[in-house]
């Protein structure tokens, strides 16, 4: 296990970040915030351009002559029916983030926009901004990385590694060798730190739910540690055995709970208000999404600039951080599909689902802020983790729905960490599809330590900065493998 240099380097790097964070959480958070702030200020335009280019690449490929190429041999058929493939895509997209940010994000933007416009306009813009963050651009980043991994591993039979396109196209001697190694290392770092952040968000979310259920006054770090301990045991155990189908079951259960929750809110909340908001939000989103991708709020004041950096740019980098991990998952379930089918399914379907999700949870939040006297904006200001639960408390059967949300958040994090530990072990052992249990357990512990660091920071902003710091270099890798992919496609069609 310790003869592999990539494994050793990646464990040292991510382990070093974890040790630093545990020894000096505030120092790591401050360092990340400063570096990320400088990077975002200087290269914000390039991050947005990258996201737009990847979206245009997906649209162009889907409708070009390359769209007919299969992800696999020409006679390969899809392994899963279209319905179960789309369901699994939902599962990949339905992370704990959707539960956490469902109402909190639109309301946070609403509060930020209020000094600049009247309330209805602020609500409209807030929903648009949220849809923009979770929509086509996010899924185009996932789709592009997933497509490249799927194309090279199924059609060119290369190992399941981020470096595979580089080595396949440019050979394995000289610069492609070390750039390839560096790419794998960056992908591993981005995934590990990104999933560490997801653990922290999961713990914050579960804790807010438990506090809401049992009405704790001051939960403090003890409750966080208890939840983290439970989570740690829950995800470490499956790593010792092969639970491929069991994990899919857990993930589907979490997704079903989330879907039922959305339906429940539509039916028990102000239904026509919610449906109108979804329709208005969708129209607004699709009419402005392409041009919005190029906006960097250059001529606005510092508040707008800070908002743009800590939300829009952070999200784009966040999707990049998760893209090797989600990309591998999407690639593995997409063998036998054409490039066109793949792109339309991966980019469009989950984006539409996100518009529904935020339409439901955002609009019920706006309903509270605009039409009633409930103090929802104060909750967003003081306890953003509790926003979803605050909304559910004002609907019938709140104990049941809050309990279900806590369970779903817990399951989402467990399945994410188990899958991430597998992908990290695979990446760090040269693309081995059956990495050793020891390697998976080591990654499980590192992910836990990274999660712990972010829990200690006790701030969602610090979590976002640390994730962005880990993911930043991956912007370059995605573009590099995209160039390898287009070169290979052109070569294949010319033959």
């Amino acid at each position, binding site marked *: 296990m310790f003869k592999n240099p990539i494994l050793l380097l990646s464990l040292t790097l991510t382990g070093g970040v974890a040790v630093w964070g545990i020894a000096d959480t505030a120092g790591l958070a401050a360092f990340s915030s400063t570096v990320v702030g400088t990077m975002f200020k200087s290269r914000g335009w390039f991050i947005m351009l990258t996201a737009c280019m990847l979206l245009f690449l997906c649209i162009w490929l889907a409708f070009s002559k390359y769209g007919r190429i299969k992800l696999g041999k020409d006679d390969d058929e899809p392994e899963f029916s279209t319905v179960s493939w789309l369901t699994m895509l939902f599962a990949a997209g339905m992370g704990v983030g959707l539960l956490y940010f469902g109402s909190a994000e639109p309301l946070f933007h609403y509060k930020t926009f209020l000094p600049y416009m009247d309330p209805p306009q602020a609500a409209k813009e807030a929903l648009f901004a949220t849809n923009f963050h979770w929509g086509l651009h996010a899924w185009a980043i996932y789709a592009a990385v997933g497509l490249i991994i799927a194309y090279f591993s199924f059609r060119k039979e290369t190992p399941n590694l981020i470096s595979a396109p580089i080595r396949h*196209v440019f050979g394995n001697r000289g610069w492609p060798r070390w750039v390839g190694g560096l790419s794998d290392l960056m992908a591993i770092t981005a995934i590990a730190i990104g999933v560490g952040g997801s653990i922290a968000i999961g713990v914050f979310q579960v804790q807010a739910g438990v506090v809401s259920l049992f009405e704790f006054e001051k939960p403090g770090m003890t409750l966080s540690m208890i939840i983290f301990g439970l989570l740690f045991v829950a995800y470490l155990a499956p790593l010792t055995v092969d639970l491929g189908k069991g994990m899919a079951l857990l993930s589907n259960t979490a997704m079903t709970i989330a879907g039922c929750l959305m339906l429940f809110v539509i039916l028990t909340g102000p239904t026509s208000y919610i449906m109108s908001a979804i329709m208005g939000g969708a129209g607004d989103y699709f009419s402005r999404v392409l041009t919005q991708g190029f906006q960097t709020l250059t001529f606005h004041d510092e508040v707008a600039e800070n908002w743009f950096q800590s939300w829009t740019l952070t999200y784009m980098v966040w999707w990049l951080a998760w893209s090797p991990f989600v990309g591998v998952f999407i690639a593995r379930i997409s063998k036998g599909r054409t490039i066109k089918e793949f792109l339309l399914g991966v980019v469009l379907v989950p984006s539409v689902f996100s518009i529904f999700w935020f339409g439901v949870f955002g609009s019920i939040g706006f309903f509270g802020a605009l039409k009633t006297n409930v103090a929802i904006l104060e909750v967003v200001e003081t306890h953003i983790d509790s926003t979803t639960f605050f909304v559910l408390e004002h609907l019938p059967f709140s104990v049941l729905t809050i309990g279900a949300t806590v369970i779903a958040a817990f399951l989402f994090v467990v399945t994410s960490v188990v899958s991430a530990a597998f992908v990290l072990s695979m990446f760090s052992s040269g693309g081995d599809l059956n990495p050793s249990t020891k390697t998976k357990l080591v990654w499980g512990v590192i992910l836990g330590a990274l999660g712990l660091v972010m829990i200690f920071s006790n701030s969602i902003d610090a979590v976002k900065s640390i994730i962005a710091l880990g993911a930043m270099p991956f912007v370059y890798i995605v573009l590099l493998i995209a160039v390898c992919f287009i070169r290979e496609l052109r070569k294949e069609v010319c033959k």
Partner: protein
Amino acid sequence: MTPQLANLIDTLLNVSVFVFVGILVWLFLKKDSQGEK
């Protein structure tokens, strides 16, 4: 940090992006050599 230093860092970070984009374009247009597949 002085404004001049901040400006210099900003310029260098952006120049590194231009260099990277240049490398990407070169890699895209580059013909296969014998060492490559």
